[in-house]
């Protein structure tokens, strides 16, 4: 069974440009999460999809970030326009059931560098 995959693995862009990150969850997992880790800090929650609906987007930093999950399968996270403070590693995770005790399965992350 394939795990959570993320594309690209690395992205280097200039301030003001747009970047789109993609996450493919484990097949059959209705729950999809986005997290971000700024260098040296904790991994922080961004948002949670249940199928194609946003269950919780309380962690989204501002309206430059747009997340979508059309059809309830893969998800994209777009940053437009990117700022220097957006640099970090963006992790995607998925889980099958909607329980707070369930394991979330993480992808390898996308390292975003904004110059």
């Amino acid at each position, binding site marked *: 069974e394939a795990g959570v995959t993320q594309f690209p693995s690395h992205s280097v862009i200039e301030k003001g440009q747009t970047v789109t990150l993609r996450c493919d969850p484990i097949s059959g997992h209705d729950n999809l*999460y986005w997290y971000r880790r700024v260098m040296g800090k*904790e*991994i922080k929650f961004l948002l*949670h999809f249940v199928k194609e609906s946003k269950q919780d987007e309380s962690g989204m930093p501002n309206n430059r970030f747009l997340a979508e999950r059309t059809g309830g399968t893969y998800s994209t996270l777009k940053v437009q326009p990117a700022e220097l403070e957006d640099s970090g590693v963006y992790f995607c995770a998925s*889980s099958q059931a909607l329980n*707070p005790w369930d394991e*979330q399965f*993480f992808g*390898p992350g996308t390292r975003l560098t904004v110059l």
Partner: protein
Amino acid sequence: AQSVTQLDSQVPVFEEAPVELRCNYSSSVSVYLFWYVQYPNQGLQLLLKYLSGSTLVESINGFEAEFNKSQTSFHLRKPSVHISDTAEYFCAVSEASGTYKYIFGTGTRLKVLA
């Protein structure tokens, strides 16, 4: 507000020595507790979790963690580490009711030395 503290950012230890990685949390509600491990160039993998019952939980590769409610701690221990245990370890909590997100600590880099 919930928070997780991992005071040790880096822990060097010699092979076959014991290690303890500390994790403390604060929360106004009941939580579930997790330890995840990230090996180089890989995603986070669940190491072990505490949901209820026995306060000592074990992983398949020799790690164990003990939930201490009075001290709000969930420290991770291994009696004898291997070179292959070199990785970054993250402690996380999720609320027993409400949202389903994880709250993570800042991570501890364990480096096992030969």
